[in-house]
């Protein structure tokens, strides 16, 4: 399988604070990479560094054999990185459909085609019936799905999902897991930051564990949850 993403010895430093310290990850086509770790471990920062939303102090990011380390976030999006935000960021003055339309315009400059792509993204996440509602009137769970629809409408090669499972009830969680599985089956590769272990176990081909900015373990989901260092990082030692 082709390697679609390779982040090599990524370091992100904010003043004296090292948020991510020499972490390397890679992702193959159609695979799911899970990023886990306790709060403040640097998961989201690593995620932002790869997608271009946080400055990299040292290290390199390669996306399909292209060095994208110096490229701004919007160029990485155009190359095929689609992402969601942990805190929902709707365009509040626009309707649900228009929110997704903004993303769909990237690959479809014509309104009619863009609208079709946006509608089908909304259908996939189950928001089609709310297409004409103002996005500022959506509740939190639906805003989360809107985030996902926006990322899908970009027709990305790699999808970066930042805690999309958080706060979902069991049936909704199951649905979301199934949904991500279908995405990967269609050839999209996924990087996900997630606290919900059920999702990590069911979906991840590979898991990387971060603690205090360092990579402390990696492997399959079962490898890492039985790893003593990981248990220690989550629960502490006695």
């Amino acid at each position, binding site marked *: 399988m082709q390697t679609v993403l390779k982040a090599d010895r990524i370091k992100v430093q904010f003043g004296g604070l090292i948020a991510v310290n020499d972490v390397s990850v890679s992702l193959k086509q159609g695979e799911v990479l899970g990023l886990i770790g306790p709060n403040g471990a640097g998961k989201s920062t690593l995620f932002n560094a790869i997608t271009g939303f946080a400055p990299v102090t040292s290290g390199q990011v390669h996306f399909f054999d292209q060095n994208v380390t110096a490229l*701004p976030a*919007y160029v990485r999006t155009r190359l095929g990185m689609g992402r969601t935000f942990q805190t929902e960021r*709707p365009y509040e003055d*626009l309707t649900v459909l228009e929110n997704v*339309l903004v993303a769909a*315009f990237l690959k479809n400059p014509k309104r009619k085609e863009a609208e079709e792509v946006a509608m089908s993204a909304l259908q996939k996440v189950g928001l089609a019936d709310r297409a004409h*509602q103002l996005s500022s009137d959506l509740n939190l769970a639906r805003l989360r799905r809107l985030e996902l629809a926006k990322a899908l409408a970009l027709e990305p090669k790699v999808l970066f999902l930042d805690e999309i499972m958080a706060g979902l009830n069991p049936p909704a969680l199951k649905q979301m897991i199934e949904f991500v599985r279908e995405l990967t089956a269609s050839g999209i590769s996924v990087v996900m930051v997630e606290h919900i272990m059920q999702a990590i176990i069911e979906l991840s081909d590979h898991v990387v564990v971060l603690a205090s900015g360092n990579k402390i373990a990696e492997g399959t989901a079962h490898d890492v949850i039985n790893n003593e260092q990981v248990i220690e990082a989550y629960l502490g030692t006695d």
Partner: protein
Amino acid sequence: MNRNYTILLGLVILAALFPVVSSSYITVGLTVLMFTGWASSWNILGGWAGQLSLGHATFVGLGAYFVAIGASQFELAPWWSILIGMAVAGIMALLWGKLTFGLHGPYFTLSTIAIAEMVRLVAINEGWLTGGATGVFIDYLPEPFGIDLFDKTVQYYLMLAYAAITLLITIFISTRKFGYQLKAVRDNEEAAMAAGINPTAIKLKAFVLSAMLTALGGGIYGIFLSFIEPHIIFNLLLSVQIALTVIIGGRGTIWGPAVGAAVLIISGEVFRTVFEQANMLVYGILILVVILAMPKGIVGEYAHRLIRRKYANRA
């Protein structure tokens, strides 16, 4: 599909009939059209792209000065000098934006005041360029097809064409990619970047278009005034008035600038005759009431209500 074009056509026909029906209020009508045009131009940057400028008098002044100096010193026809003025305004906006779009929110707004004030001082003090504080007279204009450009009715129709052009461009943008890119950048720059949009490039495009259209109106205003003084045309108050017109009418809406212009200009005229000395007080109270009761502006609030009602009816 877009009934806004039909509404525009209807409004243009109505406005075109106005001088035939009533010749006494032609200057009021002209002023409403002029502010509709300026406010629509400002709205592209201040409303759609969300970059609040208090320096647009600069572009009004540029347009007016190019017409005046072109006519008085080079006997240049106004259509050429307006085109040059628009080009200069566009280039200036490009440089201005490159310099200041690193600033966000109120800081960008403050920088627009600073630059506009600098331009005003240059216009007052560099007499060799602008005629200095005494201003410039337009004493001669060509007569294309025998049309007298000094005639009020002719100027009214010029302003009508101007207002119609700015509205036409706004409607055109509103359903297209560019319009949505503008709104995305306004509502959330990071989310816009995640949609592949370069926020600075979009804001620059908006600023250039906005400045050029403002200068177009400024050029026609120059013909209307036929005497241009730098401290009046480059005045901060004019910039504020243009911004206020859109804020009252509805930022980022198609019809907000036109509604704002009609409400502010007409009520200003009425108050001046009815309330005499107290007219500015009443004017101020009106603005305050609209802003407090309708923070999105008259058309902005209505548009939101319409979307909600449509959705409720479907569901």
